[in-house]
């Protein structure tokens, strides 16, 4: 970085050893699963009726607006209803209720597919119909990124997993490294990129070695990146690997990125004809009795997973239940939400009071903000509702990565204050748009 900017990243305590070496719990088989009928903000239309029998791999719903995304049943059993409740994204949504018959009868969702022989168009079609979506957290349909791959220089598989506590990607790669290879090569082909790489944190020594062996003889390089947050964020990762910044999409910098677990899911679809039905999920934190990774059907309720992991540690009465890691994940004030495909962790922390003092204008938040913002000044301008100044400070560029709150020595909820400033600007813009219509 130049002399005039801060590092725009920061090393965080990973807390990954808690779950990194424990075995993955695969026995969770809930009696009922609820499939969230939503992708992003768009609803998905159910394709089955109440009372229908479904098998593992039956297509049960699809999103069909300007994007296409099919959803598949993770269990075999009977569709018993549609219920509306809160998702892990804290929005109300319909959930398809499926009674599990525990028989695990499977149906092959799509025929065998040879990604190497297939044409580019066939491959794209396959990715679309297999229901591949960004499993890193975004949940964005994967095929969309590859519709017009022009002048792509670098294809990146993101195995950085910079969020503290989470080791789900790590475990997933450990157990499915061959599927990762299949998926990565297929996506690489789809991207028409000049070069391809898997980006991983430099401290994961063993996995780097395994990856190098697996990808030996392929055009895919293994690139290591420093253990900094938010190295897994697309912009930071692209800048780290290419030295380039971009305005809206990574393709402007000649890059296409996908998460490692997405590549594995695609590998699973190609090799085994298996859609996304299950998720690797890290259950960790200081308030859970048996922290470990689990492999669960999509649509499993959070409390069942918590129970399977031994429940809460005795004596802790008040917890923060976080869908995801503690930096970007949201606390959910109940344990009745279900696991969506893009979820990758449950972090359970004891609720603790913080010792907040006044902002001392130390500038740490400004130096570490990966978006190049000045959170402290946004916070001050928001306090006096100075809309013009907030726009000058590019408040809408905030990605809510949580860094500013993390580094703040005064223990202020800086991120939350920036978030509120964004909401304030959004509200102002909306009301102005309304006026204009009148």
């Amino acid at each position: 970085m130049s002399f005039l900017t801060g590092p725009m990243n920061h090393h965080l305590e990973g807390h990954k050893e808690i779950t990194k070496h424990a075995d993955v719990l695969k026995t969770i088989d809930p009696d009922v699963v609820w499939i969230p009928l939503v992708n992003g903000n768009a609803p998905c239309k159910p394709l089955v009726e109440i009372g229908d029998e479904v098998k593992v791999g039956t297509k049960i719903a699809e999103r069909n607006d300007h994007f296409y995304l099919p959803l598949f049943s993770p269990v075999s059993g009977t569709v018993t209803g549609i219920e509306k409740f809160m998702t892990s994204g804290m929005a109300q949504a319909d959930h398809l209720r499926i009674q599990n018959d525990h028989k695990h009868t499977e149906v092959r969702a799509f025929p065998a597919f040879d990604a190497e022989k297939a044409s580019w168009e066939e491959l794209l079609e396959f990715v679309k119909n297999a229901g591949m979506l960004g499993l890193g957290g975004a949940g964005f349909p994967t095929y969309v990124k590859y519709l017009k791959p022009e002048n792509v220089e670098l294809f990146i598989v993101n195995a950085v997993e910079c969020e503290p506590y989470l080791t789900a990607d790590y475990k997933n790669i450990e157990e499915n490294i061959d599927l990762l290879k299949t998926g990565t090569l297929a996506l690489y082909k789809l991207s028409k990129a000049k070069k391809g790489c898997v980006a991983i944190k430099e401290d994961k020594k063993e996995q780097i070695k395994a990856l190098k062996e697996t990808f030996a003889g392929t055009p895919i390089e293994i690139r290591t990146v420093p253990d900094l947050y938010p190295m897994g964020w697309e912009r930071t990762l692209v800048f780290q690997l290419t030295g380039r910044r971009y305005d809206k999409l990574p393709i402007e910098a000649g890059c296409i990125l996908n998460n490692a677990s997405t590549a594995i899911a695609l590998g699973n679809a190609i090799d085994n004809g298996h859609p996304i039905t299950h998720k690797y999920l890290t259950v960790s934190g200081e308030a859970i009795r048996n922290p470990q990774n689990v492999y669960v059907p999509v649509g499993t309720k959070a409390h069942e997973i918590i129970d399977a992991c031994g429940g809460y540690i005795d004596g802790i009465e008040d917890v923060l239940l976080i869908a995801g890691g503690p930096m970007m994940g949201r606390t959910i004030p109940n344990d009745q939400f279900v696991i969506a495909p893009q979820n990758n962790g449950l972090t359970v922390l004891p609720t603790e009071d913080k010792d907040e003092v006044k902002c001392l204008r130390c500038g740490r938040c400004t130096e570490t903000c990966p978006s190049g913002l000045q959170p402290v000044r946004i916070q001050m301008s928001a306090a006096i509702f100075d809309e013009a100044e907030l726009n000058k400070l590019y408040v809408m560029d905030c990605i809510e990565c949580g860094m500013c709150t993390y580094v703040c020595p005064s223990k202020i909820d800086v991120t939350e204050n920036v978030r509120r400033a964004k909401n304030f600007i959004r509200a102002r813009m909306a009301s102005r748009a309304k006026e204009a219509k009148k």
Partner: protein
Amino acid sequence: MKFSYRPSPNFRSKRHTSRIMMDLTVCLLAVLLCSAVSYSIIYGPAIGIRAILMAAVSVITAEATEAVYFKIRKMDIKKELEHSYGWVTALILTLITRIDVSYYALIVATILCIIVGKLVFGGFGQNIFNPAAFGEAIIMNNFAASKAADVTAKVYDTLSGGTPMAAMNSYGWIIEKANFPDFIQQFGGFSNMAMGGYPSVIGGSCAIVILLCGAFLLWRKDINYHLSCTYLVVLFVMSLIVGLYHGAGVEYALFHVLGGGVLFGTVFMMTDPVTTPISIPGRVIFAVGCAALTMILRWRSNLPDGVLFSILLMNMLTPAIDRLSDGNQIKNRKLIRNKVLGVSAVIMLITLLVGFFGIEAKHPVVSASGANTTALKDEDFAANAVECTAQGNGVYLCKAKGFEGVNEATITVKDGKIVGFEVTAFHDTPGVGDMATAEAELTRYNGVSLDSIIDATSGASFTSSSLRAMAAAALKADAGEPVSTAPAAAPEGSLGAEDFSANEPYCTVWTNTNKPEYVYKCTAKGFEGVNKALVTVNKDEGKVIAIEVTEFNDTKGVGDAAVAEAELARYAGLTLDAKIDATSGASMTSASLRAMAAAALNAAAGN
């Protein structure tokens, strides 16, 4: 089980503002301790203890003031006190105060800086001005006279040239390369300055400790290097350029950094985040501005040290500077960078211009400060070795030593008054000394009698004193008094007649609390190294009372024969006219001792 809601992220670094303040406190205490110890050693334990007492008084006052304020505002006193960090302000205030400031002044300043400098703005984090700098400005402006006189006498009056910055001031802020060694000697050289062996403000002395604290705080990431390093570098570079332009060397620039409050200000005040810009570009501009103002205030104002006021002035600009770095640090990187470069360049250019054309070297008579109050006939011109020869008709041809050479003048006296004064030969520094020989200056001598008082020409005091010496001599000669003030030659073989120039002896007054006893701190070259001694002289009688070797750097086992107790005893009662033998077998060391004794006696005699 209760599921609480907290906005993300729910993960925080361990570093807490309180820890930063604790680090700062520890460092401030270290500096205080260092000062107290060095004051104890140099001026006696009473002064050292006073430093600690002052800090205690200020801290207690600050905490009490805040407690009362919080009580009135009905806030939780204990919690607010803990998070208001008033003691840090109080410690900094004490450390930027002079040791002779009265407790009364310190207490009032503490109360004002806590209330007006901090609490009225909304307390910690909201204040505009650096509260400690604010408090010190109050002391300087309103309590300049409120001093503990005994402390002033003990600490500051022993210095011939005053504190380093005052000394710089008397030299016109430029010390040419040739004069630098003499100049720095007053403060015992750079090493002595680094160890705090000279008085300035309480915390200003221990450069080494301050630097260590700075390094510690940087390492702990408690303070910001963009600000502190930029400030030091810019200050050094600008004073170097200006110094080179005026014929000064690197030492001059170093002196700007080491002397006065620069180091303390950099580590403990400029890095106060509350009153400085938030973003890095803002901090760089702030630092450049501070460095420029420090230099300009030093050069062009009568303030003792520019650091404090430069900080206060820049504090006012902080919000504007913050606005300069509006925008997204990634998207507007070039724009912000250009702004920083442009603003910095303009500031530096202005400073350099002021430095090039706004200052001029002076050669002060170290002891002559302020206006003259002595009548011409009573002034002591011994150093000028003046001689006059009568040419008849009241015309005298006179010679007298100036700064570098001997100046000559033709003076006409009528009825005990000067009626003509013409300089016939001028051998002092052109451009400096000739200020005293300007026509307007010379007309001041018209009508002057022995009872007149003539002020020295400021900025050219040596030359001026040679002129006055000649005037006095001519008047005296006309009145029939003896004229030559050249010292009578010392008797053959006596101490006063020995030539010690090879030893390069040098003495300064160390203490004179016990008049007429003067203690001189002397240095002189011996065989291998430079030896140092404290020589106590009875000034009225021109006699050595005792000599005490403080540092011995010659060959052990050889030279130390000369510094044995029995040998040193021989110096008691010694005068310039007496003869003293060298210690046999240790003649070089002995010569250095004799040189120091002679230098001290000469200094006492005003030679």
